[in-house]
């Protein structure tokens, strides 16, 4: 734990693997830039690894004023204990006021151990971050310029805003895609600072024997159209309809968490607070009730079409178009209408046809 330090920087943990930066730290630099400007302090990225020098300029281009680099052979492969030791040394040395991590597999392994070692707070899976003030109940003291950590909680029935006013740094994790990726500026200037940390004679506790990585099969963030299915799809077999409609529209397949839990679709397809956040031109939600966690991952879509047999499903409260009906009937009708695309226009304007 460090003291409250109003001059402290805003930090982003620059997660990288095998010399490749993840998207989340770049997205976080966009949000971090905004927070740092509001607080009038520098924005810094913290880059740990081995042979990673060339990544620093990229972090500057995405908005970092400073990049703290620790290049050491013990940091080549990520493991919580080693990274924690180095990261906590840097926090104690530079006393940042805000530290942001991506809520990736690595970030969710790493950030809690940092919070535990520093005895500070950590809010998981924030869907928004702002700067604001807080007055504790029963107190008149106003804490200004705090990080407001906003996230759905309790099954999505509430939105909680969390603060952390006495034991700093204020730390939060954010899922991939939640913050908008900033446009890089290759001409931005920033400082690259090489940091020394005591790792001599240190023995990492974990032996990493094998590493297997697969490319993400699904590009949800880049998709123009997403067709997503939820528990209401009913069976894995029915879920093929979601694929058919997506293929027909040249779109990607998404799903709710319930659909992952039921085995209808792979976790890579999950959209929402604990999945991917998307902003497509068209989002078709079929058999998705629209719990807040799901909503958090798709409500910024330009157009939302909900197909649900329950007219009271929450999804209709924020959809632009709605069809109350059985998706097993509706989706084939949509596919038919799209395939006959050109004819559709005349059909829509013609006199009522057969039903």
């Amino acid at each position: 734990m460090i003291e409250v330090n109003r001059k402290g920087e805003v930090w982003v943990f620059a997660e990288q693997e095998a010399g490749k930066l993840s998207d989340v730290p770049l997205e976080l630099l966009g949000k971090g830039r905004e927070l740092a400007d509001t607080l009038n302090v520098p924005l810094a990225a913290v880059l740990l690894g081995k042979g990673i020098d060339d990544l620093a300029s990229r972090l500057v281009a995405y908005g970092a004023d400073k990049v703290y680099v620790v290049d050491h052979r013990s940091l080549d492969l990520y493991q919580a204990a080693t990274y924690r030791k180095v990261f906590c040394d840097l926090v104690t040395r530079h006393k940042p006021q805000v530290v942001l991590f991506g809520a990736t597999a690595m970030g969710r392994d790493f950030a809690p151990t940092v919070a535990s070692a520093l005895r500070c707070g950590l809010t998981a899976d924030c869907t928004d971050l702002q700067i604001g003030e807080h007055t504790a109940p029963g107190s008149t003291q106003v804490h200004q310029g705090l990080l407001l950590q906003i996230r759905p909680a309790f099954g999505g029935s509430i939105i909680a805003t969390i603060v952390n006013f006495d034991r700093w740094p204020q730390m939060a994790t954010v899922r991939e895609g939640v913050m908008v990726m900033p446009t890089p500026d290759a001409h931005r200037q920033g400082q690259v600072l090489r940091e020394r940390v005591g790792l001599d004679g240190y023995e990492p506790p974990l032996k990493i024997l094998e590493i297997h990585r697969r490319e993400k099969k699904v590009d949800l963030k880049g998709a123009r159209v997403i067709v997503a299915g939820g528990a209401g799809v009913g069976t894995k077999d029915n879920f093929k309809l979601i694929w058919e409609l997506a293929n027909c529209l040249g779109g990607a397949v998404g799903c709710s968490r319930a659909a992952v839990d039921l085995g209808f679709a792979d976790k890579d397809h999950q959209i929402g607070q604990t999945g991917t956040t998307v902003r497509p031109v068209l989002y078709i939600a079929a058999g998705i009730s629209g719990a807040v966690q799901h909503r958090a991952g798709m409500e910024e879509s330009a157009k939302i079409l909900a197909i649900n047999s329950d007219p009271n499903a929450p999804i209709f409260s924020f959809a632009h178009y709605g069809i109350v009906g059985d998706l097993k009937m509706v989706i084939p009708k949509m596919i038919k209408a799209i395939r006959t695309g050109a004819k559709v226009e005349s059909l829509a304007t013609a006199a009522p046809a057969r039903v």
Partner: protein
Amino acid sequence: MGYDCVVCAKQVPDTKNITGQAMKDDGTVNRAALPAVFNPEDLHALETALDIRDRFGGTVTVITMGLPKACQVLRDALYRGADRAILITDRRAAGSDTLATSYILSTAIRKLAPDIVLCGRQAIDGDTAQTGPQIAEKLDFTLISYLEELQALEDQTIRVKRNVGNGWEVVEARLPVLLTVMNTANTPRPSGAKRIMRFKKAKAPAEVAGEVAAQMPQAGKPEQAAETKNRCDALAAKGLLIDQWDLSTIEADLAWCGLAGSPTKVHRIQAIVLAGGQYRQFQPTDESVGELVGELIRDHTIG
């Protein structure tokens, strides 16, 4: 020989089953209508521990922190094969965030001096996945998160396949370790019929005290306390008294527990109220669906 395992279990509201009936008229969730369940991934952690005991010998102790009603998950663990169950309950622990919770649990676990601690990867009520890694840090146990397969355990060394989302790794570490277990790791064994018969009456002292207070409302405090003690002694004689620890038992520093020990504070809670939507409704007919698709094509949303 064998390995002593401690499994951390949590009783959680069943947030997966928020249905229409669980919504109040004002559109917010009626928490009381949600059943409390064994956190799903904690069942997989328990299964991993039971599997280790079955293959290599040792013991499985399940601990939970919460109100006395959390004993339901402890009984469930006993039905499935746990050797010992411990309830950690204390008013002074109320309001603990993940940091304070991991402090309290790690202090309790230290008293048990296990070789392996197992947690579910995350709990469905908060999805934070923080408490396991934080317990590991506090105990200085090596953290191995996202266990999908226990590949080997010999000579105080464990080898594990972990699922990191975009792939997998095989890692090895010396004991003691803390494992967080994925729901893809195994299939939790069901409760054993004989074990249900044997442990269905197992209770913690706080539950017995609650029962006595309800059955003898007229009795004075000393009388109730004496009756509670009698009943607890009788349960203990049959091996059915669930251990109950408080913050004093585990010698926790109160500065790190409960609200005082929690750096994160709630600034604001907004209930989600479902308002009526302003969406344009189309009918599930060929004609109406065709009209919608036509409109989306005309405004270049699709096509």
